[in-house]
């Protein structure tokens, strides 16, 4: 089956000469929640805007469900719903007419019952006849989500969905995202919050300075996230790890002075307490010890630093 979105060799140089994307390759699978994680200015919005047809790419190809975004732009675009980063709404429209407009714009016949359902899901039904200008920021954000869903897209982009969003809306939004995923909608969200990627995504792609530096299943990342290291500075260097300690998978530094024990939350390996007991039994004394906790944050920072 073709991927929901196939991005291949896409780069973007803005008119200013700024190279915002450098040959990005990325496939989004059907039905997944994909988080595009990266610091501000990494190129997340640029990438999304290219897929959605808002920004022209400098090179590369993009297809949506096998439809080239230039050649088969109608098919490609009608599959996509976009909630952009910026709050931009027609102030003088009413909430309901804004959704009705979006649905029509995407080529779907009117369906008042569906619009009603979306408005109710987004807790906007009471405000259906209110002018958008009279709504709070959070409510406007809900309207933008509603507009993106009005034409029943198969793929939903959420660009920085939780930027400036209150707790309640965040929870509503995530509940909705999960519901959509259950109904088969593919969801791509961008964020610079690691927790958000962790909480929501099936897969995470890390982007920095216009380059994808990592794409991984979240479980895989979580394993790395949950990984801890215990480092022991030995009093007397060892030539080799003693046989009795083989089960711990210890690493000995080149000078034989440091032993490193890596373990994670889910691991079957015996715990730190038993290691320390066994060390005493073996007569290995240590001068000092410290533990390292490698979080996704750390992985992320490392990746970003390495790439720059």
């Amino acid at each position, binding site marked *: 089956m073709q991927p929901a979105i196939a991005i291949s060799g896409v780069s973007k140089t*803005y*008119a200013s000469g700024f190279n915002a994307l450098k040959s990005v390759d990325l496939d989004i699978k059907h039905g997944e929640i994909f988080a595009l994680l990266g610091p501000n200015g990494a190129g997340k919005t640029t990438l999304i805007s290219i897929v*959605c*047809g*808002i*920004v*022209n790419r400098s090179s590369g190809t993009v297809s949506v469900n096998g439809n080239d975004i230039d050649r088969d*732009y*109608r*098919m*490609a*675009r*009608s599959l*996509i719903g*976009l909630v*952009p980063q*910026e709050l*931009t*709404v*027609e*102030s*003088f*429209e009413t909430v309901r*007419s804004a959704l*009705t*407009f*979006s*649905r*029509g*714009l*995407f*080529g*779907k*016949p*009117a369906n008042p019952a569906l619009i009603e359902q979306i408005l109710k899901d987004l807790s906007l039904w009471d405000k259906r006849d209110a002018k958008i200008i009279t709504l709070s920021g959070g409510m406007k954000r809900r309207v933008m989500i509603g*507009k993106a869903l009005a034409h029943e897209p198969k793929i939903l982009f959420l660009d920085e969905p939780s930027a400036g969003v209150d707790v309640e809306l965040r929870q509503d939004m995530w509940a909705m995202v999960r519901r959509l995923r259950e109904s088969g909608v593919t969801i791509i969200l961008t964020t610079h919050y690691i927790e958000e990627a962790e909480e929501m995504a099936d897969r995470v792609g890390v982007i920095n300075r216009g380059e994808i530096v990592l794409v991984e299943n979240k479980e895989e990342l979580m394993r790395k996230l949950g990984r801890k290291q215990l480092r022991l500075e030995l009093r007397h260097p060892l030539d080799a790890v003693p046989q009795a300690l083989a089960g711990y998978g210890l690493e000995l530094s080149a000078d034989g002075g440091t032993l490193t024990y890596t373990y994670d939350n889910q691991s079957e390996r015996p715990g730190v307490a038993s290691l320390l007991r066994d060390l005493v039994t073996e007569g290995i004394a240590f001068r000092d010890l410290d533990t390292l906790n490698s979080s996704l944050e750390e992985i992320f920072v490392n990746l970003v630093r390495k790439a720059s």
Partner: protein
Amino acid sequence: MNRHAIWAIYRVEMARTVRTLLQSVVSPVISTSLYFVVFGAAIGSRIDQIDGVSYGAFIVPGLIMLSLLTQSISNASFGIYFPKFVGTIYELLSAPVSYLEIVIAYVGAAATKSTAIGLIILATSSLFVPLHIEHPFWMLAFLILTAVTFSLFGFIIGIWAGTFEQLQLVPLLIVTPLTFLGGSFYSIDMLPGIWRTITLFSPVVYLVSGFRWAFFGKADVSLGLSLGMTLAFLFACVAVIAWIFRTGYRLRT
């Protein structure tokens, strides 16, 4: 053809007209009435007739054209500039709509509105001067053709404009002078030689002349030339718009 999209855009644009009914309809009616008071009554009382038509009646086609031009340009330019300005253009750019559909919807809405205003002014005029329209079909044809042509022109301005000042600039610096030099309030035969030649470069001359012919059966230039020049301007606008969309000029970065 994405009919739903055309209809959606058209409806939103027309809804804005209804929302701003006062300024979009009432103000042209008031200003037309003032023109009649000033030009028709005050000045017209000193001018007998032009080409056998009373001066009050003579200026009706020019007045309608004047409003038609300014209204078409301002409606269409604002219609597409506004979403660019507030950022809602993202939705249009990401929607499965073709360029042709976008143009049909925006230009169609702007032209509908200015045609309606033209007809309202015509009705207002008939309160001031007795009017007899020689060629009603051609009158309507010129009305619609002009509305569409200048709505296309306005659409181009709306896409080109980066600021509200620029949006006002073209109508102010080009359209108003062209209209005044376009024989709206006089027969171009009344101008001294050199000015007469200059005005022939104004496309408005041909519009007003053709339109006036539809009213009175008399014109400054021939009907064929009027029609030809109007169509030429129309196709020039279409060509520019086609280029804009092909290159994404000022729409897609």
